């Protein structure tokens, strides 16, 4: 074995990757943080609040983002992906592919003039396509690094060799259409994978009408709809007529605990549906919510009390019974068909807005990354974790944390990240 490098690579800049990076950096270990997107922050940045404290999500996250950015031991590589891995624990050689940003990182001051002038309108992925962004953009206002990115697929200069307006209006001359994609290599002693999760797409569940009925949305869409920085500026309205919804329904286990889709429990939906109902009630005390569930899996400390509080103080009714069918009336109100298992009655109820609690699923490209890194995936396509040391992957020197190994909530991801950081540090501190 060659030189043992006091350097760790963290793949994925969500809350898990961020926490792992900060832990390592504080121990004096150099961190190479690789993020596929233009900004770090991940899913947590998309959430409005977090349970069970109902704290503002971005308020907790933003200081960590800033810390990551300015920590002398952390190097941030955004727009970057892993292409190849060689070497062994203690001395891995990783090939990185970094997409061009077309904005000079040192020059851009995030003034936003370019955004105002850009003529393109593109579906905003960060806002679950609920609004449009421009071809030059930043995912969200608190995004880190706090600089713009040009989306090559949609920019008129790249698609039609026209426009270049952003270049003209930028006083800092930060636009650089000549930037090229880069490939470079990094040497690290160990690697932490923290690539997070995707959201199950419920269009395939035809009977629930998602994609067909405007007032049936997913829980992550709901987070954006109700978030102050979201497309509605925090004033909850339903998509069909922009009226304020008064009767909400949440349906748990949409595509999870389901052999035909995802057999596993996504572990946090029982909690986040309660949280979302609470936030809605805080916005408007006239809102009444039903949460349809199979079992209420409120297994964390304080979680059961949280649900109790929802029932007592937030006008939430919990109905035991999974919903298989939603229709719509002529006012575009969703009609839910359900059995109330406590009474065995089968009924239909009208709601203003229905939210589907869709589960976390493995990242679409998890299999590909697993192949590059030479680690195993499990039956569901999550990265396979060691049964006794859950932060260990199947390969020595490569560790896992957060929802890329199994669905988990934010507190658990943070704990997991610290665990993975400790394991990764063991390798690089060895010699």
């Amino acid at each position, binding site marked *: 074995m060659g030189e043992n490098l006091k350097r760790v690579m963290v793949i994925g800049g969500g809350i898990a990757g961020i926490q792992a990076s900060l832990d390592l950096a504080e121990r004096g270990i150099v961190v190479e943080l690789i993020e596929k997107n233009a900004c770090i922050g991940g899913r947590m940045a998309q959430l409005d609040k977090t349970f069970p404290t109902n704290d503002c999500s971005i308020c907790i996250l933003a200081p960590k983002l800033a810390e990551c950015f300015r920590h002398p031991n952390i190097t941030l590589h955004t727009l970057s992906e892993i292409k190849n891995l060689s070497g062994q624990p203690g001395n891995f050689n990783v090939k990185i592919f970094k997409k061009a940003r077309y904005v000079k990182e040192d020059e851009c001051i995030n003034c936003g003039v370019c955004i105002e002038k850009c003529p393109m309108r593109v579906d905003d992925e960060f806002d679950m396509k609920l609004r449009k962004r421009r071809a030059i953009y930043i995912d969200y206002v608190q995004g880190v690094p706090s600089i713009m990115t040009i989306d090559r697929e949609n920019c008129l200069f790249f698609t039609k060799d026209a426009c270049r307006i952003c270049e003209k209006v930028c006083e800092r001359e930060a636009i650089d259409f000549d930037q090229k994609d880069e490939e470079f290599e990094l040497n690290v002693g160990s690697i932490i994978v923290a690539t997070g999760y995707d959201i199950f797409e419920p269009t395939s*569940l*035809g*009977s629930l009408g998602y994609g067909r009925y405007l007032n049936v949305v997913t829980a992550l869409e709901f987070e954006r709809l109700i978030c102050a920085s979201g497309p509605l500026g925090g004033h909850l309205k339903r998509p069909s007529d922009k009226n304020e919804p008064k009767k909400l329904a949440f349906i748990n286990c949409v595509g999870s605990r389901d052999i035909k889709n995802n057999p596993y429990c996504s572990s946090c939906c029982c909690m986040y549906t309660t949280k979302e109902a609470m936030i809605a009630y805080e916005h408007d005390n006239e809102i009444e919510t039903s949460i349809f569930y199979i079992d209420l899996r409120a297994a964390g400390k304080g979680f059961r009390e949280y649900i109790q509080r929802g029932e007592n103080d937030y006008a939430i009714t919990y109905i035991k019974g999974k919903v298989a069918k939603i*229709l*719509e009336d*002529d006012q575009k109100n969703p009609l839910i068909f359900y059995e109330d298992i406590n009474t065995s009655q089968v009924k239909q109820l009208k709601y203003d807005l229905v939210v589907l609690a869709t589960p976390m699923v493995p990242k679409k490209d998890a299999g590909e990354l697993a192949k590059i890194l030479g680690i195993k995936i499990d039956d569901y396509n999550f990265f396979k974790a060691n049964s006794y040391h859950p932060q260990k992957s199947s390969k020595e020197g490569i560790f896992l944390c957060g929802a890329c190994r199994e669905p988990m909530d934010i507190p658990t991801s943070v704990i997991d990240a610290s665990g993975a950081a400790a394991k990764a540090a063991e390798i690089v501190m060895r010699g």
Partner: protein
Amino acid sequence: MSYSYFLGCVIPGRLPFLEISARKTFEEIGMKVGDQAKCSCCPDPTGAAQLDHETFLALGARNLCLFEESNNHILSLCSGCTESLKTVKHILDNDDEKKKEINSNLKIIGKTYKGDIDIKHFAEVLYENIKKIKEKVKKPLKDLKVAGHPGCHYLRPSEIINWDDPLNPKTLDELIEAIGADPIEYDMKNDCCGNPVEKTDKEISLSMLESKLKSMKEAGADCIACVCPACYQQFDFNQREINKNNNTDYNFPVFYITELIALALGINTEELGLNFHRIKVNDVLQKIN
């Protein structure tokens, strides 16, 4: 290997005009379909099949053997028969023990099930020939709003039927589109017409039918198209009864999809025996002429 008709009980015994439309349609698109003699009840998946599993398998397997003997695939004119026969085949092909049992019963009448024929619903075969149908259309049924009713046994259980999307079916609507008509979307498209429940409780059966009719009406349908004689009966025979009981005015003409296709292919209305429908189809004929 070519196809022969499996007619079932309802069509030849009660609704022969549906049979003529199917025969004319397949003739017109240039498909020769033979006749298979001596088939028994499939048995009815909503009726006799529920009484005794062993008998269900024995009668179903005998029917399959008849087609094997004449070296023909099954082209079934009824969704119920299709489900029964596909289910029997599924069990015989996947459960060796059951196959042994059934074959020992079949031996009494000198037959053995081998498993070398296929079963298809007639609409499945039409769908496979959709290009040919489009080419042969002489009289597109322009502006005709058709509420397609795929029904249950045409689609489900999908593990056995293995055809179209069981919860979001498309094939019937595509056939309706192929003859120039307008397949309308309506909320209850995928629901049961209620026919099988008639055996146990007529009132419930009619309630199920009414919810479907209501949904079709709201969506502005001119007529109904179905692919199963049980559904056909439910729609054509019971709309009046619903009107009588509930003071409604449902009056949708009901067509077998082969009748609509035959019309679009230019086959004469008299030849099709459309006058045997209980709900008169004149308005539709006027609209398409």
